[in-house]
């Protein structure tokens, strides 16, 4: 025992080095869930403060571009409004006079919240975006995130009081259900970690006949994303003779380099959908 203690005391530098290495490797490997709950909130608060200080500067210099974007978006929204006010067609008399169901009233499924981006990375293998809107302002886990152009950005993975963290599409584990606009065949969007501009669309059936330049949209199967949002365009097609599926490289429509504002999308019926998707296995 005495010898062991002596040995450790003689080599205490080496042992403290070993301990530090082990600590960092454990942190790195167990990052997924446990780290997020233990340190996540605290780290988010510290890094969030510094990031928002820095962002105040960056924000100032980008005001012009942001303004242009806002104006464009306002115009788009106004157009949409005008389209909504179509006069009721009174020239057609309905055969059944008694059927009076108000067809104008619809149930709203998706709600949009704006949020300011205060932290953004795109050079790493696992990229995250931090936004200044948290649980107190109505953000929930698994909400979808889209950019002002209407192209998709990622999914909320972590929320504290005033900040939330988004897993960007540029993340090794990111997976979003997508479809080709041409023939409505669905696959899943992933990222291979190579270039921030290029995403991969996997598991496209070989019956599809994609062409370079085809539009890729979100599919109606996703529970967090509304259907038919822009993802990107096909830039090249990888044919693998040994598989029944095609892999397509997609030029991303989202510009991840200069995200300033994003919109969070809340699906009011997400829980209900997830619930029904998980049921039924016991009955088979």
């Amino acid at each position, binding site marked *: 025992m005495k010898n062991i203690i002596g040995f450790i005391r003689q080599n*205490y*530098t*080496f042992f*403290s*080095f070993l301990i*530090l*290495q082990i*600590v*960092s*490797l*454990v*942190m*790195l490997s167990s*990052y997924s869930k446990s*780290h997020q709950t233990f*340190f996540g909130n605290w*780290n988010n608060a*510290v*890094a969030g403060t*510094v*990031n928002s200080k*820095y962002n105040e500067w960056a924000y100032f210099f980008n005001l012009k571009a942001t303004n242009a974007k806002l104006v464009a978006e306002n115009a788009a929204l106004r157009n949409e409004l005008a389209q909504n006010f179509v006069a009721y067609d009174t020239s057609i008399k309905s055969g059944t006079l008694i059927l009076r169901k108000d067809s104008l009233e619809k149930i709203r499924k998706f709600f949009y919240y704006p949020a300011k981006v205060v*932290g953004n*990375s*795109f*050079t*790493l*293998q*696992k990229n*995250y975006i931090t936004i200044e809107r948290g649980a107190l302002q109505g953000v929930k886990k698994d909400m979808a995130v889209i950019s002002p152009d209407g192209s998709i950005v990622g999914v909320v993975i972590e929320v504290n009081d005033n900040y939330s*963290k988004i897993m960007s599409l540029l993340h*090794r584990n990111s997976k979003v259900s997508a479809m080709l606009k041409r023939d409505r065949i669905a696959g899943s969007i992933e990222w291979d*970690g*190579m*270039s*921030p501009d290029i995403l991969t669309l996997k598991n496209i059936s070989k019956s599809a006949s994609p062409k370079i330049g085809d539009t890729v949209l979100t599919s109606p199967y996703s529970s967090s994303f509304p259907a038919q949002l822009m993802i990107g365009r096909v830039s090249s097609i990888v044919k693998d003779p040994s598989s029944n599926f095609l892999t397509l490289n997609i030029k991303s429509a989202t510009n991840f*380099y200069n995200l300033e504002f994003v919109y969070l999308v809340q699906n009011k019926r997400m829980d209900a959908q997830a619930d029904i998707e998980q049921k039924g296995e016991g009955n088979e």
Partner: protein
Amino acid sequence: MNNILKNSARFILLLLIQIIILNEIPPIHQFITPYLYFIFILWLPFGTSRIATTLLGFAIGYSLDMFTNTPGLHAAAASLIGYLRPTILNILLAQEVSEELSKEPSIGTMGWGPFMIYIFSITFIHHFYLVLLEWLQFGDFGYFIGKVFFTSIMSMLLILLAELLLNRRKLKR
């Protein structure tokens, strides 16, 4: 006291440069992410003990990790170079230079040759370990070698640039 102040200022400044500038610039190529923050370890005075450089390496690495959401990645790499630094310096330095404990490694105090070998070996070890840890999570060997090589060259250029810009030669008597 002066030394402590100077080095804490450096710690914060290098961290800010790394976070605000180098991590933000669009990647020149998929291989290259420029790293400069570990120049803090390179510039510690000769007399800093091994345990101090290791702990400081861990501290600056972990601080950077908090901003890049990769807890432990940079901390592991920076504490490794902190631990190896005294060994490399002992091999490279003549006895009389390493006795001037308050001086810092630079072209002026070490000379061109040894200093280049010093920064090259530390940069290479840092990137090799850093990319190895990343690579263990998702692998492709060509990507690994390419990334280590090109990122090392990029960092070497940045370090030399910092060295020449700050003109730390004048320390030589």
